[in-house]
């Protein structure tokens, strides 16, 4: 039994050896880690009087002439710490945000492209050409889902222990002031500054060692190999250990402008109110009626959302009538039909209330106790709503 087993095992082992030899050598994407010693040793073989002599291994400096394996000495040097980061701005167009919003984010990807683990302090820089200033700016580290959703995003000021070649998504979130208006923009840059790794928390700021001086042969020196590639941004001077990339579409000529980043999309509502006397006690209903006691006056309130604006929802308007007038609470029909709403030229709707059963407009209006109110209007860009009501002069 035992002999048979052995006989079977031999071909299996041979096969394994062949496969191992045939496997292609996988090239590592990682750079050689800092602190690694690169050693070199050459060998010279030669003949004297046509007799092969024992080979001689090399040595650094003056060299070696003692023949024999293992009698040479490696020529060595140490791989230093290459500090390098790439930051990619992932938004190809302006990110639309809204007055009062802090739910939108600029996406950046930070990757340690050096050969040593580092911490990276993060800062969001505001483009001087901004047209709105956020009430606050926060940087979040994505937890892995690649979506800014507050589920796995953690507010950070630095990336801790960033391993080499491991991209990390980072979100720059600006809280837009409620007063921001349509078309305002702010572009942000993400700045990453290298710090020493080691343990939780931000390590000491990395500094180049032996600048302009020979390498410390026995120690790992820190070498800044930075620049975001274009080298045109003022904050992006080469070899300062600071890496800056602007969000959106960074201008190639080095000027900064709101070509990337956040763009505020606000509603552009205009409200106009006009009045017309439509009847008086003398002439009755007439275009020539005068504003005398007992005359009926119709008010027209027009709400318009400008072209290119964000859709305004839940638009509501209230108006208190003058003390010298009385509301005509049934001007457009029986019951509570004191108000009409004409949405975007679609025809006036009287008694516009979702609850009154007269129409299904969704608008809710009331005209009681000297005050009118209309709510539930949604206005897309370029749309308008015309609201009418009537009063009589006391």
């Amino acid at each position: 039994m035992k002999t048979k087993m052995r006989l079977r095992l031999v071909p299996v082992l041979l096969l394994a050896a062949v496969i191992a030899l045939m496997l292609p050598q996988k090239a590592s994407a990682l750079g050689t880690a800092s602190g690694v010693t690169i050693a070199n040793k050459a060998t010279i073989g030669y003949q004297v009087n046509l007799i092969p002599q024992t080979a001689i291994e090399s040595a650094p400096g003056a060299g070696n002439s003692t023949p024999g394996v293992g009698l040479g000495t490696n020529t060595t040097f140490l791989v230093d710490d290459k500090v390098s980061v790439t930051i990619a701005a992932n938004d190809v167009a302006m990110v639309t945000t809204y007055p009062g919003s802090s739910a939108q984010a600029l996406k950046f990807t930070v990757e340690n492209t050096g050969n040593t683990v580092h911490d990276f302090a993060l800062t969001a820089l505001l483009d001087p050409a901004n047209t709105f200033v956020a009430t606050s700016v926060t940087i979040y580290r994505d937890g892995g889902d690649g979506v800014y959703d507050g589920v796995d995003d953690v507010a950070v000021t630095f990336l801790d222990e960033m391993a080499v070649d491991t991209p990390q998504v980072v979100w720059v979130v600006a809280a837009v002031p409620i007063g921001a208006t349509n078309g305002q923009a702010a572009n942000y840059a993400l700045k990453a500054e290298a710090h020493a790794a080691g343990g939780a928390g931000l390590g000491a700021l990395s500094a180049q060692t032996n600048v302009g001086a020979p390498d410390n042969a026995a120690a790992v020196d820190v070498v800044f190999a930075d620049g975001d590639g274009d080298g045109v941004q003022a904050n992006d001077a080469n070899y300062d250990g600071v890496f800056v990339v602007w969000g959106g579409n960074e201008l190639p000529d080095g000027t900064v402008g709101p070509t990337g980043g956040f763009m505020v999309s606000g509603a552009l509502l205009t409200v106009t109110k006009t009045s017309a006397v439509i009847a008086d006690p003398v002439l009755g209903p007439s275009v020539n009626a005068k504003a005398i006691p007992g005359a009926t006056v119709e008010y027209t309130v027009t709400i318009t959302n400008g072209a290119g604006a964000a859709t305004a929802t839940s638009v509501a308007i209230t108006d208190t009538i003058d003390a010298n007038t009385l509301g005509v609470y049934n001007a457009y029909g029986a019951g509570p039909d004191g108000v009409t709403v004409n949405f975007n030229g679609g025809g006036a709707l009287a008694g516009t209330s979702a609850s009154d059963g007269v129409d299904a407009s969704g608008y809710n209006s009331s005209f009681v106790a000297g005050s009118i109110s209309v709510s539930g209007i949604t206005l897309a860009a370029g749309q308008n709503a015309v609201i009418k009501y009537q009063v009589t002069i006391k």
Partner: protein
Amino acid sequence: MKNAGRCLAAITLILLFCASAMALEKGAVKLASRSEVDVVVVNARGEKEVKRVDAAKAKVVPGDTVIFTNAYENVGGEAVKNAVVTNPVPEHTVYVDKTAEVKGARVEFSVDGGKIYGLAQSLMVVGADGKARPAEAADYTHIRWTIEKALAPGAKGSVSFKAKVK
């Protein structure tokens, strides 16, 4: 059988003694190896110039090119013939194509750890797809220079190559 075994052991021992005695003697050739990098320095006149410095005394990071040089010298009293310098491509580095060529020496490479050597264009490796393809500089594991001329006593020369730190 036992006697034969002892005999063999004794012979091996003697051979070992001989080998170690020989090793202590100086050979006819001296081989010195150095690793260097080219750095740009600003000289006293404010001009930029490239200086070749010892890699151990320079900052070397991944992507940098290192120049490995092997200087040989005939330190014996006889002419040396068929000198062959072999240098494995150091670990963590990749050979830079066409940097080992030198006048007066035939350059060959190995892609199998130094077992078989051949001219650059003759070498094949198994690619990622399992098919054979011509070897590239990155596939070389060893470099071998065969010095064509005999070295008279006192004659010197050197061979070198460049490799990039991975």
